[in-house]
Structure formats: C-alpha cells, structure tokens
C-alpha cells in the first residue's frame, strides 16, 4: 500500500477560534474515504488546506509525496496535475460551454493538438454519463446533477490519481444522488482512483466509502470502516447514524 495523503498534527486557528486542534490521518492509494462532521466542524477548511488554498496554522500535509505548504511553487504546479477537485456546486466557468470547461485543463496543461482535445472532451463527458448535446450548453442551462457531472468530467480531465469532492450529492434528489455516487464508485474502481469526499449524506457513506473519518471539536473522533465508526460511543456519531435506520 502506498500512502498518497498524510495529514500530521494539523492545527488551524482563525483569530481566537480553533478550527483544528491536532488532526492526523493518512490515506492509502485506491481508498474511497469519507470525511464527516457537523456543520462548522472544519471539514471544508481541512479540504482547502489539503488542496493548497488555505494555509494551516501548524502541522504538515503531504500529498503524493509533496509537502503542500513547504514546497516551491513549481512543485505545487506539478502536483496540481495529479489531483482533481469537485467543488460543491461544480464551480464551472459560467462564461464557457460545458465542452470548453472540460477542455480548459487540456488546453492549459497539455500540448495536445485541438483535433485530439475535442474527441477527448467528448469522451470525458460520456464517461461521466452526460448526453452528447450537453457539451454545447452553458452551465446555467444544466440541472444541478448535470452540472456536477460536468464538473466531475473537468476534475477527471488530466487523469488524476486523487479526486477531492466537497459535498458531491448536496442539492441532488435521492435518485440523482444515488446515480452520482454509484458513478463515482465505478470510476474509482475502474480507474484506480483515490477518492476523498466530504459529505452529510449517510446513504452515500454506507454505499461507497471504504473508510470514514469523523471530525468534531477540531479533532478526529473516529477513523475506520463504516461499520466500525457506526459502533462508536461518541454522542454526535450515534445521533448521526441514528438519523436514518
């Protein structure tokens, strides 16, 4: 097993407010890992720190062998080609069509000729289950589920080793959500992806997560398989898993 992400005694403070108070965990290649926690438990901040958007107060984050906060900018640029991020509402560029959105990573980070990019973009859209005519549409013309799929296609464009997702099923109806996380699991299995996602969605957690990390009061309160975490004594986790039978 190869460790692709390790977080060591991470501390984050915003003024007097302590968000993380010594968070540590590691992620092995090929794992599908869920990060859960109540609203305000610092999940999103942790994700932003891992992908290099918010600087932690102290601690170490190593992603694919690169220290995210100690490396030279060029090392981070190199690293960015190896992970994809799906933001909560997709974060597609609203002034570009879906096909152009997916083409952005190809155009910016590869030297592929245009006549190769076009079919690759079409394939990526098909890979995430979008109909062929979706490519010509603007993000505002798509439903929430289709926007997420298009954003997933963009996140997968450069064949990342790691995929980060922020609330991948929020705003989707239960049927759409189920389709979406099944697609994720299928892609993770076929592509050998490591998937790290934040969620409140218990169904998704049970259906696809290999491992769950629960965050509360700035610390990791549980780390293990869904079954193991479910047995935890922690009152918040008990309440969380009791919310659906």
């Amino acid at each position, binding site marked *: 097993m190869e460790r692709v992400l390790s977080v060591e005694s991470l501390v984050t403070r915003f003024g007097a407010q302590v968000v993380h108070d010594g968070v540590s965990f590691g992620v092995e290649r090929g794992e599908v890992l869920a990060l859960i926690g109540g609203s305000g438990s610092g999940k999103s901040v942790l994700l932003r720190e891992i992908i290099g958007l918010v600087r932690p107060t102290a601690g170490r984050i190593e992603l*694919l*062998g690169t220290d995210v906060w100690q490396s030279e900018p060029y090392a981070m640029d*190199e690293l960015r080609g*190896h992970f994809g991020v799906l933001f909560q509402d997709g974060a597609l560029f*609203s*002034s*570009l*069509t879906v*096909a*152009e959105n997916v083409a952005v990573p190809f155009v910016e980070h*590869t*030297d*592929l*000729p245009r006549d*190769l990019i*076009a*079919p*690759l*973009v*079409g*394939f990526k*859209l*098909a*890979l995430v*289950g979008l*109909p*062929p*005519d*979706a*490519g*010509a549409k*603007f*993000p*505002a013309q798509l439903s929430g589920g289709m926007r997420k799929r298009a954003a997933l296609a963009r996140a*997968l464009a*450069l*064949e990342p080793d790691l995929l980060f997702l922020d609330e991948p099923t929020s705003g989707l109806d239960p049927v759409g959500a189920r389709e979406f996380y099944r697609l994720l699991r*299928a*892609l993770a*299995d*076929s*592509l*050998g992806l490591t998937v790290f996602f934040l969620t409140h969605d218990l169904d998704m957690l049970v259906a696809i997560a290999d491992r769950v990390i629960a965050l509360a009061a700035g610390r990791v309160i549980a780390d293990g398989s869904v079954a193991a975490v479910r047995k935890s004594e922690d009152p918040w986790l008990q309440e969380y898993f009791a919310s659906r039978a």
Partner: protein
Amino acid sequence: MQENLPTSASWIERKVEDDSDVLYLTGVWRLANVAAISGRLRELGLHARTRFVLDGSKLETLDTAAGFILLRHLADVGCTQAMVSARGFDARYQRLLELVHERMTTPPSAAHSGHQGLLPRVGATVFAVVRMLKMHVDFVGVVMLELLSLVRRPGRFRAKETVSQFEAVCIDAVPIVALVNFLIGVVIAYVLGVQAQRYGATLFVADGIALGICRELSPILSSVLVAGRSGAAFTAQIGTMKVEDEIDAISTLGLSPIQVLVIPRLVALMVALPLLVFVGDAAGIAGGLLVGNWQLDIAPQVFMDRVHAALELRHFVIGIAKAPVFAVVVAIIACGMGLQVSRDARSLGQNTTSTVVQCIVWVIILDAAFAVAFQRMRI
C-alpha cells in the same frame, strides 16, 4: 511520481500470430503521451480485415485518455467489438478498457460557444436592443403601478431605506461632483478667457460660465457621474440579490421587490440629483471665478455681479428641472438591468456595463432633446 520517460518510443509492436494481428502495447500509456500514441496508430495503417488482439503484457501504465485514443482509432478503421480481443492486461487496466469501451459508444460532442458571422451578429444585436427598449418601457409601467399602489397605502413607503440610499447617492457623491464641475469651470473660463481677451471682452467670461455651467454642463456632468457611480451600484446590488435568490425571497415574504428595492432608489435619486446639480453649479462658477481673478484680472465682486446680471432665473431652473428627469432614466435603467441579471457571473458584469452605457447615452439624448425643445419654446 510519474514515469514519463519514453521507455519505448514505438508504443505498439505489431506481430502476426496465427491468423490475427497482435498489437503489443508497450510503455507508459498516459495522457502526456497521447499525441505520440495517436501518431503511431495512424502510422501503423491498420485495416479492419483481420482480427486484432490487444496484448497488455508489456504495458507499464494505462489511463482513460490513452485507452480512448486506442479504441477510437480501432473503431474509426472499422473494427467491430467481435474483431478485437484483449489479453495479458492487468485486471485494473482490463476494467478500465471495458469502461472506456462502454462509454465511448456515445458520439463525441465538441461545440464551441459560437463565433458568428457579421450579419447574424448585427441582427441579434438589433433584436437585443429592441427587446431591451421594450423591457424598459414595461418596467416603467410596472414601477408606475407600484407607485400608484403606494399612493393609496403610503404607510408602505420605505422611508428608512430611501434615506440610506439618499446618503449613498447624494451626500457621498458631493465631493466628486463638486470637484469635476469645479475643474470644468476652470477649464472653460480659461479657454473662454483667452479668446475674450483678444476682443477686450474678458468680463463676458462670467456670462459664459454662468449660462454654460448652470444650464447644460452641471446637469449633464452630474448625471453622467451619478450614472457611473450609483447606476452601476444599483445594477450590481440588485443583480447580486437576484443571483442569491434574495429577490424571490422578498416576493415570497409577501413584499414587492419593486417597492422594497426600486422605489426607494428612484425617489432618493430624484431628490439627490437636483441637489447635486446645484452643488455642481456653485462649484463650476467658483472655478470660473478663480480663473477670472487670477488669469483675467476680474475682481470676484465684479464677476459675481456679471453672473447675477446674466444668469436669469429661467436658466438656473431649466438646469435644475432637467435633473429629476435624468434621475428617473438612470434609476429605471439601473434597477431594470439589475432585475434582468441571470444566474451566471458573466451576466452581472455585462448588465452593469450596459447600465452605465445606456444611462449616459440616454442622458445625452434627452439633454439634446431638451435643448431643441427649449429653443423652440424660446425659453
């Protein structure tokens, strides 16, 4: 992290075994090498006459992009699924190829956000302008109806919001309006003075300043400044609220977005702009007076006497009276454009730009119309 070295520059070794074509995939089949792989595939000149066997035993890595390029090429040369088989692949890559094959059957789409020809663009623009004019007329009607309903129920008028808007559009704008009009007064007095000196008629600079500033320049300049300052702000504020669904929230709470958002801004601007024009008048005349004193040796007392003699009340009133009309134009366009913002980042920017341009153009068109009309009426 990634072994990008082209361990084998050939990517594919082709051998004929039994009666089938065996393609040994070699090396690192990753996105970075897709262009080279694609070139190599074309170079091989495959034909769909025989069965193909894909052998993955010499493969180092494979990703979906490379897999897609391979399978697409085979499909392009006419291979059906029955004609291609795979062997020797790592279980992971086997699954990956199956996934690629399953998904690639949908034809690729590659559309660009249009580059239209000149004629369609001209046509589309004309229709867009006509639509926009119609929308403004509609909006004037809507605002009038809401105003009438306010007259019947004056208790619903939002005085507090109106006052806070007044502060933003009037009080906060005083320095910039005063500065711009003052400088214009200085410039005009200077240019006029140089000409007037030749005829020994320097005193008439005061007439020119008083008339020009009060009747035309201050109303126009103040309105243009307000269009750029407050018009853009109205569109951006209301547009952002639209994007965040706040407008819908106002409606569902049983309030009228027009009464809550538009009418306070409209009223505030109608009160504010005449006052700003007055500030502009004073600042412009002060600018002229300063240049008259320093450059043209006109004593301030004499300059002001001339201003009193030349500036009949009607000129001053015409200048001030145009201001509320301009205010209505700016407020209606700015609020209307704000409510038209759609849910994307580009639309907000486009509408804000469009507001400023439309407001300035309309202010100038209306001012020209006023100038002609007043001339005909001999006032």
